[in-house]
């Protein structure tokens, strides 16, 4: 069994009880993905599985044979951050930074969902194009908790990038 993480193939032969989150953190030492609750309640562990966001604590690694996973380390690096990563720095879209990788992974996939026209509770219509309004972003990001309360700045960071990339 094999899994692709940030473009690199890895073997999946460990303890079958290992969550995707612990596999990333402990087996592969990709510790950018954080564990805030281990129960799908906080979003700190958000990664992209075949481009879609998922709470990696809620799924076992062995369930991802053949899948392609992108973690925060795959979105950008210290030396070459993604547009969203840069916007978070500029807007102070964090405080302690613990929820940040999850927020950024989540927001990356969220923009793709808006682009694909998936409606949300905040959408006016179920069909047709969706605008990246503040309310849309807030609703769609509500699975990513930030106890520091950086929400207003996270919204500003995502909003700026969404405006550029979705309009």
């Amino acid at each position: 069994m094999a899994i692709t993480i940030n473009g690199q193939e890895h073997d999946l032969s460990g303890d079958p009880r290992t969550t995707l989150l612990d596999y990333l953190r402990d087996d592969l030492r990709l510790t950018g993905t954080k564990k805030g609750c281990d129960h799908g309640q906080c979003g700190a562990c958000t990664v992209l599985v075949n481009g879609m966001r998922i709470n990696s604590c809620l799924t076992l690694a062995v369930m991802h044979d053949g899948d392609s996973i992108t973690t925060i380390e795959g979105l950008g690096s210290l030396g070459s951050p993604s547009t969203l990563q840069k916007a978070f720095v500029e807007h102070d879209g964090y405080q302690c930074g613990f929820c940040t990788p999850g927020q950024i992974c989540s927001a990356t996939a969220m923009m793709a969902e808006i682009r694909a026209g998936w409606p949300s509770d905040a959408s006016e219509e179920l069909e047709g194009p969706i605008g990246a309004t503040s309310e849309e972003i807030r609703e769609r990001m509500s699975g990513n908790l930030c106890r520091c309360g950086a929400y207003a700045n996270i919204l500003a960071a995502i909003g700026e990038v969404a405006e550029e990339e979705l309009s």
Partner: protein
Amino acid sequence: MTAHLKQDKPDTRNLLDKMRQGVIGKPLSRPDGPAKVSGTAPYTADHAVENCLEGVLVTATIVRGEVADIDAQSVLTMPGVVAVIDDERLTARAAQGGADEAPEQPARKVGYFGQPIALVVAESFEEARDAAKQLKVDYRADDLSDIPLDPVQTDPEPQDDGTRQGDLAHAMTSAAHSVDLTYRTEGHASAAMEPHAAIAEWDGKRLTVHASLQMLNHNIIELADALDVKEEDIRLISRYVGGGFGSKLGISEETVAACVAAMELGRPVRVVMSRQQVFQCIMRRSETKQRLRLAADGDGKLIGFGHEARVSNLPGEDFAEPVLQSSEFLYAAENRLLQLEVARIHRMTAGSVRAPGEAVGMPALEAAMDVLAEKAGIDPVELRLRNIPDKHPSEGLPFSSHKLAECLKQGAEAFGWDSGPRKPRQRREGEWWIGTGMASAARVHNIEEAKARVTLKADGTALVETDMTDIGTGTYSILGQIAGEMLGLPVEKVLVELGDTRLPRGSGSGGSWGAASVGSAVFVACNRLRERLAGKVGIAADDLVLKDGTAGNDLRLTDLLDGEDLCEEGHYEPGEIEDDYTAAGFGAFFAQVRVNRFTGETRVDRMLGAFGFGRVLNEKTARSQCLGGITWSIGAALTESLLFDPVDGHLVNCDLAEYHVPVHRDIPDVEVIMVEERDPAASPIQAKGIGELGMCGGAGAIANAIYDACGARLFEFPMTPDRVLSALPE
């Protein structure tokens, strides 16, 4: 060399304003930001340690009693399991902030449901977790009917003598307008996003411990005491902390357990609490019951002020939620009665959660002020303006600085506050009633002793070192800015190293004192460095102009240093300024809410906070602290409450699905106004703290807005839909 300042007098020199680098106060992005957004910032559990074992805590399933037997054999045969640790040194509670001694030991003695009692250690997390669940434990449990669990049914004891001045009862009967109201607030959890974690390594003599902690300067003392190991044989490291909010002020159970296990097993051990364990055995904010008595004359001037509160804690704990802290000085009134009582009950330890005291005391006070304003027919902003004292109402001390009036006025103006007559239910949009409310903000200013070392290197860069932490507050940013400003260096040339007990002792992060305390230590060190540089140039320090790596027009710092590093340790201590002044941060909140007339749901539409807290050290990170506080205000107002089982006292909602912290969609457009000022008696950098002020009263503004929207006066926080519905008139 060491430069020492014990501050006995206000520092009105405002030296930072005389510098030329122009970085102090500027909204600069955090130097630690790129590491945080790229996932490379190492938090405690992220450290790769060779050969590391995993420990999982086992917690008590009784409320009070003793562990009679732990059947280690029941799990030692399971795959990967290495040991069951139930050593005498394991701690039963987390240390209170600044305790400087080991918390309650041994863990075998149980005082609350969910208390850690043992640690199961295995080769992998999955193996340890499984074995921890299977471990057989026998208890000698006390009879539930003998254990006080409910603060309402337990007789409280007075916390101290309280404040008594004049005759409040008489003031109440003779007043033109008075209110006598009782409020209840439920318990809160810090719920920092990073669960408590530690990795301990023992080389036979020395311990190296990565742990998620706020105050290494105190934590090393607590850990040494708990383990009976000398302080000099311990190194604590905490460079990135995933939020604290009081929950990491003292060492907690996982750090001691990891150390004990590492020492017994001779291998490194990592222990990370589960989210449920964090809820069950880390500090809670006590629930409160508060009686507010306010008596005013015909002009709305307070003549009587009574604030009494009952809180709870475990037997043997000194901490009592200081509910009345800002009530002592916020409003003038000759006749005063303030009294705090504590009920001893068996829930997890009550301790500091962001803004201990004011976070729950101020909303109740400010809600009562709104009722008084209505009774007296005075605009709520005006009522506050009329009651600002010119000195501490009972101690007579002058205020170090006081920006409440400015905050009220600027806030009202920016919010578009309507100071006309107020009446509920004047605005409706579909199912929603819309209303506005306001409240004052106040939070005592704390300051602590702190040390920091600053080295001006021969290459023209500077290094700032202290064991101070950055828990998301911006310490890395502001220390770099203070040093950069004083030494004439752009912040890119200043490296700040934090969170390692090998470095000089800082103040720790807590009580909003970090920036002013350790910032002052950096300032003191830099000031001495400036004197030494001035000596080299042959001029007075006051005449030395440092900017962009030069000391005057053509004189480059690198040439002046001529291959030499200059190093100074700054040591700051608050002296008599602490006794001579009442120092506090002040502010005002304005909120607009909508309340659903059918469901009773409240949504905050917009919120504004105006705050005066001395010098702003970094406009961007200070604003973030204000935003964080306002977010917590919304949580405390509408959703956050710890719920305990009435039968066995266990915490029912011990996770993030059931304990409702605000999420993105709960947080509306928020505006922050920082009323810039210099407070010379607060610190030599004229700064006060801002980590907590933003939640000291905000929930009161929301309560008052709910009343204005729909006419429901609530006396219980959080103001959940069921409570709003039952308080709706007719």
